[in-house]
């Protein structure tokens, strides 16, 4: 079901014929889509609730073509939305109705894997998992592993600063990318970062990573590869109380352990997953924790023993340690299949992405339970517990009038509570079009103005992915929500759930 309320297309008027002529001049016919039936597959990304048809889809094969497309659009004042695999969950790659989609899908070559230097140089359309597969013969891999890694591309990962289940120990995209080549809206090429540990000048790499295609178009990515740990083992613990599970997470960290992965699922999530995956989850537990340890066999044995001790003290009702690689993968299979499993028990679901301080978890989960009654919708919770990143999956039925609107309001309330609890509206999925209104809650006017100035420093005419990631002040005024400063809410005397 299309929902156009957030689409931001009104202001720009484009000479469609001039655009088509211009693009035909710089791209061969097989690199340009113009017909409606060809454009249709590009109307949305992984967030299907928001759709828009672009005027054209460009599928360049060389950097020179990317430069030409950007110059053409710049000259004609046409918006450009860069796109990788389109697996994003925040509508970041949703087209602009008066714009062009610039797909990097054909930039799919791994240019170099350097075993000695432990780096890979890849084109932005290369899939995340393909990098690790190419590095595997050398005992190396690319650490960030978003759950969509079989499909999502490195270019998209750079745009969103993607994480994954192992980022507590191994970092996000920003910690694992060394260098990018970027084309500006004017068609100018920049090399940002280097294969050395740092580069001269401002750390523009940090600014570009996670900028959601607003600052430039990436045409090449150099990533760090790390040695594959000899062994990984996972501990699965059951808890009769979600608050206790949350405390157990804090206790593991307090014990000086940074596990390779630390994930939590609530009862609604395990109930959805278990019949589907048969991972062996404890169906009576209110929450289960998965804690992975990796390293040398000696190191893993030492860490698993310490983790087990902490979990016992924290009141786990049952603890199991994977005894084989097959069992480890089975324990994880449920977590990794959580989204599709929930997709089996509900016609539609809406995935949220707030981060909160871990210690506020129990509070957040009880608030979500209250929201389930308020909105009359169910919600399953999976949680990157180690880094406080919560993915509530709100279940709804798009064919029922009003269901999506309630799901959207439910999600907005979760995000705004995340900010009030001292967290963020998005940990790894990005703002895109989805959370554009909640940016007005997370940031005050001066910060939003600073973001607009940063955008203008890179993209003066504002043609790269306009209307995404950073809301206009006008939009915030219309949305009418206030930025919550350090938990000082309006009407502090009122209870808030």
């Amino acid at each position, binding site marked *: 079901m299309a929902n156009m309320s957030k689409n931001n297309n009104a202001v720009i008027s484009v000479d469609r014929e001039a655009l088509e002529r211009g693009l035909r001049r710089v791209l061969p016919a097989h690199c340009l889509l113009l017909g409606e039936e060809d454009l249709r597959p590009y109307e949305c990304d992984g967030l299907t609730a928001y759709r828009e048809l672009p005027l054209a889809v460009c599928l360049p094969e060389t950097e020179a073509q990317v430069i030409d497309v950007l110059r053409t659009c710049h000259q004609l004042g046409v918006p450009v939305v860069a796109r990788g695999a389109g697996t994003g969950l925040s509508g970041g790659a949703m087209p602009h109705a008066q714009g062009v989609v610039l797909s990097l899908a054909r930039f799919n070559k791994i240019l170099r894997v350097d075993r000695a230097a432990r780096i890979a140089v890849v084109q932005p359309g290369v899939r995340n998992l393909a990098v690790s597969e190419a590095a595997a013969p050398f*005992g190396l891999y690319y650490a960030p592993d978003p759950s969509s890694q079989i499909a999502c591309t490195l270019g998209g990962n750079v745009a969103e600063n993607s994480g994954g289940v192992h980022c507590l120990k191994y970092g996000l995209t920003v910690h694992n990318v060394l260098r990018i080549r970027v084309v500006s809206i004017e068609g100018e090429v920049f090399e940002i970062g280097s294969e050395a540990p740092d580069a001269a000048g401002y750390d523009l790499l940090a600014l570009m990573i996670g900028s959601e295609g607003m600052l430039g178009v990436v045409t090449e990515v150099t990533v760090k590869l790390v040695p594959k740990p*000899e062994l990984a083992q996972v501990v699965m613990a059951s808890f009769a109380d979600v608050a206790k599970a949350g405390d157990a997470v804090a206790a593991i960290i307090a014990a000086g352990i940074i596990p390779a992965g630390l994930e939590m699922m609530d009862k609604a999530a395990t109930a959805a997953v278990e019949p589907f995956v048969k991972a062996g989850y404890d169906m009576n537990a209110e929450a289960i924790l998965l804690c992975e340890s990796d390293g040398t066999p000696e*190191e893993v044995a030492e860490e698993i023993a310490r983790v087990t001790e902490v979990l016992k003290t924290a009141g786990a009702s049952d603890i199991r340690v994977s005894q084989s690689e097959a069992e480890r993968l089975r324990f994880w299979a449920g977590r990794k299949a959580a989204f599709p499993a929930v997709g089996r028990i509900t016609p539609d679901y809406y995935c949220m992405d707030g981060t909160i301080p871990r210690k506020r978890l129990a509070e957040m989960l009880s608030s979500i339970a209250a929201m389930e009654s308020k909105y009359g919708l169910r919600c399953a919770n999976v949680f990157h517990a180690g880094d406080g990143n919560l993915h509530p999956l709100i279940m709804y039925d798009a064919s029922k009038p009003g269901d999506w609107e309630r799901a959207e309001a439910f999600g907005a309330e979760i995000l705004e509570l995340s900010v009030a609890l001292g967290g963020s509206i998005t940990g790894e999925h990005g703002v895109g079009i989805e959370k554009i209104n909640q*940016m007005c809650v997370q940031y*005050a006017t001066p910060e939003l103005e600073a973001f607009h100035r940063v955008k203008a420093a890179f993209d003066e005419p504002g043609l790269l992915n306009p209307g995404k990631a950073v809301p206009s002040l006008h939009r915030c005024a219309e949305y009418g929500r206030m930025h919550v400063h350090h938990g000082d809410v309006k009407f502090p005397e009122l209870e808030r759930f």
Partner: protein
Amino acid sequence: MLKAHSLDDIVAAVRNANAAHAPLRIRGAGSKDFYGGLLAGEVLDVAAYRGIVAYEPTELYITAKCGTPLAEIEAALAEKGQMLAFEPPHFGGANGGSAGATVGGCVAAGLSGPRRQQAGAVRDFVLGVKLVDGTGQMLNFGGQVMKNVAGYDVSRVIAGSLGTLGVIAEVTLKVLPKPVAETTLVFECDAAEAIRRLNEWGGQPLPVSASFWHDGQLWLRLSGARAAVEAATGKLGGNPAVNPENHWNSIREQTHPAFAASPLWRLALPSTAPSPALDGLRAIEWGGALRWYAGDVDGDHAAIRVAANRLGGHAVLYRAPESLRCREGAFTPLPPALLALHRRLKKAFDPAGILNPGRLYAEF
């Protein structure tokens, strides 16, 4: 000199300077006055705006006001068995006489110590900043959570920006537990062999947390779980070091004789880069990726920069007489398009160009 005791003092000082178009030179402990370009403008001393604002060991973060000495932060962390994993230098402190580096200066300079090769650099640990921009506007970027992709990641860009984008008033850093076990091994080898070995070890799952080569000796620090350190020690051989803590501290604080050169060049290179055709190699760190060279005041400075660029890295004129740094620039010149982008970004935060002008590049 202007002394700021509060956030209001900082804001007022910047507003006045902005109105008068009068440059400010932001200063914490002054431990890195030697670093970067020209020191110009009236000193805005922020050392008195200090103190830990929040420390949550189980949330793995600490928030502190800019003037807080690193020593104070590290003492608080040590009580809970935690650390600043990027091992920033203090350049002073207990033995050096002065109070030692502040957290604001540490983030502004972006200098990391020996553990950088394993743990990451300053910017990898910056979670949030409270910044006073060049117009005196207070801005909050990032926050206190590990994962936050809402808005551009301005707080990480602030690391290493040398105060040119804003006065860092407060900063939140990710902290990590101290390793359970640590051992240092020493090997005898030349520089080329050290680079070869470091890269070979880097490709294996070994808990190498620091490396340092100087004058025919390669020092290697292993950190992690006890079992992992013991297994690696058995595998690697070498001789156990005497007094390793003092040794690594002298690398971190650059009191080791290897750093006693002026001019001293810092070359950041791909770790596998062969030795450039330069004389004066003093030390190798970070698994081969950081190399220190003694220069010559009358030497061919451009040749050093060219050599580093050719190898895919860059050269910083790290310690040198101010006159030389002003003439040659401390940092490798940027290509024109990138320089233009830097100027636009500078303007976005400091339109009048009053914050530490020339400290990073003479052009802004």
